[in-house]
């Protein structure tokens, strides 16, 4: 082959070959110029990858056949080359053949597809359960039976998103607390949502499932390799859709057990902290952090909200009115609106700090101080 012909050949085959051989490419470049799905680290993700490749190659072969005939006649049967049109049409044999062959191919595809789907759905005999709840715009992970639950939110700072600071390596893929899971354990995920529909997608696990308010969906993963795996919300859920990533930290079983023990102790400590009395300054400082993390996405950092969509809080009836009303809306949310019930999402300390902050920031100088114990009493009293 001449050099030009070789180059042409390489160009034509490049998309096909790169799809096929991407696994061997250098790790970093492979990630940036990735052209295929990851094989992943679970039996399901491997099964998905295999069937994906089977169908892909069948399509490539059919494509070469169909386009081959087409390009041949485009070249050979040009009028400028003196081609005279034949007049054949309607051939029952041909039509039966090109109906039966695709139908047979479909059966060939349907067999592995069915068995892969059965394994996607096989949630039986899981060794542990994680309940995953989607919120606008964060995830809550609950270790069922372990009394451990926490929120997992994006930690990429606004400055990186709005280009005033350089973007870090895991831009939009870093969270406050990763979901920690043990390796080589069959984990069942129970997935739901509190507000709109979200979808929990981690490509390396071969897991995607819609998180739907009022329904609990289930899926599962058996992760072979310890490591960090990243995923995203896959169902449009409002303006923070691109900003609620998933990070999973998979540990060896012993490490995982140690982590879980530490986590339980932390939960107890936070509970203890709720009995403490704080000063206004302490609450304001904590409140600013917690507000910016949990409230500012809608009500904005300056408390002014977005007119017509999210109410402002500067001098509003709630933030400068009765404390009870303020507690009620933060703890229980407001049904029929985007205002979530934060009672189950945040600790008493954070709830108290946020309410105190909202009542004293941006010129809302009510001087009101809400202690964690007040929040606890409010929750118990209702």
């Amino acid at each position, binding site marked *: 082959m001449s050099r030009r012909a070789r180059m042409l050949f390489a160009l034509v085959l490049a998309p096909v070959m790169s799809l096929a051989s991407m696994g061997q490419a250098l790790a970093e470049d492979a990630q940036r110029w990735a052209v295929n799905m990851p094989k992943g680290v679970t039996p399901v993700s491997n099964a998905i990858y295999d069937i994906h490749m089977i169908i892909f190659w069948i399509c490539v072969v059919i494509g070469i056949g169909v386009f081959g005939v087409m390009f041949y006649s485009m070249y050979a049967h040009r009028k400028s080359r003196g081609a005279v049109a034949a007049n054949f*049409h309607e051939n029952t044999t041909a039509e039966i053949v090109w109906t039966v062959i695709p139908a047979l191919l479909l059966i060939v595809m349907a067999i592995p597809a069915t068995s892969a789907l059965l394994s996607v759905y096989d949630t039986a005999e899981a060794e542990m359960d994680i309940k995953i709840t989607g919120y606008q715009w964060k995830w809550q992970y609950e270790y069922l039976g372990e009394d451990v639950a926490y929120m997992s939110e994006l930690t990429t700072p606004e400055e990186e998103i709005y280009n005033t600071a350089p*973007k870090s390596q895991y831009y939009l893929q870093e969270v406050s607390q990763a979901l920690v899971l043990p390796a080589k354990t069959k984990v069942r995920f129970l997935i739901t949502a509190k507000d709109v529909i979200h979808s929990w997608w981690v490509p390396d696990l071969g897991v995607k499932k819609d998180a739907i308010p009022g329904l609990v969906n289930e899926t599962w993963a058996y992760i072979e390799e310890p490591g960090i795996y990243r995923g995203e919300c896959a169902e449009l859920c409002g303006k923070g*859709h691109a*900003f609620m990533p998933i990070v999973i930290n998979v540990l060896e079983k012993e490490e995982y057990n140690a982590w879980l023990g530490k986590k339980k102790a932390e939960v107890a400590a936070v509970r203890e902290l709720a009995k403490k009395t704080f000063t206004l300054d302490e609450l304001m400082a904590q409140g600013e952090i917690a507000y910016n993390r949990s409230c500012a996405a809608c009500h904005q950092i300056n408390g002014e909200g977005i007119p017509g969509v999210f109410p402002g809080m500067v001098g509003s009836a709630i933030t400068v009115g009765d404390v009870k009303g303020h507690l009620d809306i933060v703890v229980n949310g407001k049904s029929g609106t985007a205002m979530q019930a934060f009672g189950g999402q945040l600790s008493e300390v954070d709830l108290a700090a946020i309410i105190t902050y909202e009542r004293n920031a941006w010129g809302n100088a009510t001087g009101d101080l809400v202690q964690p114990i007040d929040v606890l009493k409010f929750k118990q009293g209702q």
Partner: protein
Amino acid sequence: MAHGPAKGIGRWLFTTNHKDIGTMYLWFSFAMFLLGGFFAMVIRAELFQPGMQIIRPEFFNQMTTMHGLVMVFGAIMPAFVGLANWLIPMMIGAPDMALPRMNNLSFWILPFAFALLASTLFMEGGAPNFGWTFYAPLSTTYAPSTVNYFIFGVHIMGASSIMGSINIIATVLNMRAPGMTLMKMPMFVWTWLITAFLLIAVMPVLAGAVTMMLMDINFGTSFFDAAGGGDPVLFQHVFWFFGHPEVYIIILPAFGVISHIIPTFSRKPLFGYSSMVYATASIAFLSFIVWAHHMFMVGMPIGGELYFMYATMLIAVPTAAKVFNWVSTMFRGSLTYETPMLFAIAFVILFTIGGFTGLMLAIAPSDVQYHDSYFVVAHFHYVMVAGAVFSGTAAVYYWLPKWCGRMYNETMGKVQFWISFIGFNITFFPQHFLGLAGMPRRYADYALQFSDWNMISSIGAFIYGASQLLFMFNVIRTIKAGTPVSEPKTWEGAEGLEWTVATPAPYHTFSTPPEVK
């Protein structure tokens, strides 16, 4: 002979002439195409680099939503209704559409629907921001208050489509020239007849979906609200029961157009006319029983999942038959490559690629990785843009000389084709990679590993966008100053009644029906 067109603006406001109404539909659709294209340019400009550069995420969501709604309901559907108005009476030898006044009405309510929809961009709360699929409860409980304008707009569009469809069915079934049996009808007429039935079947379902939303939002019902005993998944079933036939509503008339153009420039009859008719009918039938393949991730029972997977895979059979038919028509023909033929060939290639990815998406287990990713975005743009838009463009170049009696500039047409073809592929081919690598759709911002393909895709989008301005220029130039042509048959290999009337087509054609043998 009847009178000619009225003078002044009244000609357009009160016209009952199928050619005038067809022209208005086509210009309206092109205007919407530019508007929806502008929204797409905003989206691709924002996605050119990671980080938010020119708009904010809440506005990004309005752009994706409006792009989808304007393109599907404002650009593609009216374009094919416009073609139907112009061509169906001329193809079946009828003097006009069966219900000319309703024809006028069904066009003239459309600009109001889109004015309502577009006006929300300037309102407090912004335009609809919940995607063109408007899943509840994001589109109900959590929607901006402008959602009511959107609902009213959808109702008007639906009414317009239903009236248009009734008109097409009445025309095709009652006004064919003597001797033109159903199985002698041109393919474009056949595909539109079937499409019209699809529209009448599913437009009321869409109207039902938005009416239930209206009730949930304003009158305290809970169709889609789990807290009130409703079900958000019900919305998706209702929507996709409309939405899946909708994609065939868009693509079937495109099949019809291609089935005219390829035989013409191959100088050879369509290989299997009757099998094309049956394939079209079976695709239409299958479109009603596969809707939940858009919902493989909602947690259906495995039996449902398997059923929808198998049924969806079946669509490959009649679709493949169509592609084989077009290729066999070209085989041993006498081919020339005028602009309409170039677009038609590109249609077959790119639509086939879109068909392959469609087959991949039908496989429920691997859909776990494809669903709601850029792979889906790539797939449906291969079908909608390379399918519907390319065939619409091909149709305009093909019939424009007949409509205005002037020939377009062939070189400019070919240049536009190549820019479109290359720009389109640079835009959408990399989106397959992005989706497989894990980038979800409708993302205002993305992780760094997706930067490179996104930048390439954006560059392609600007190229493709620019090529449409060249198209507009070529069409306007043709109408104003193209080389006059007068032979009834513009193309050597063209067949059909529309090529037997004078060029340009007189205001009234077939006042006495022709005889079809």
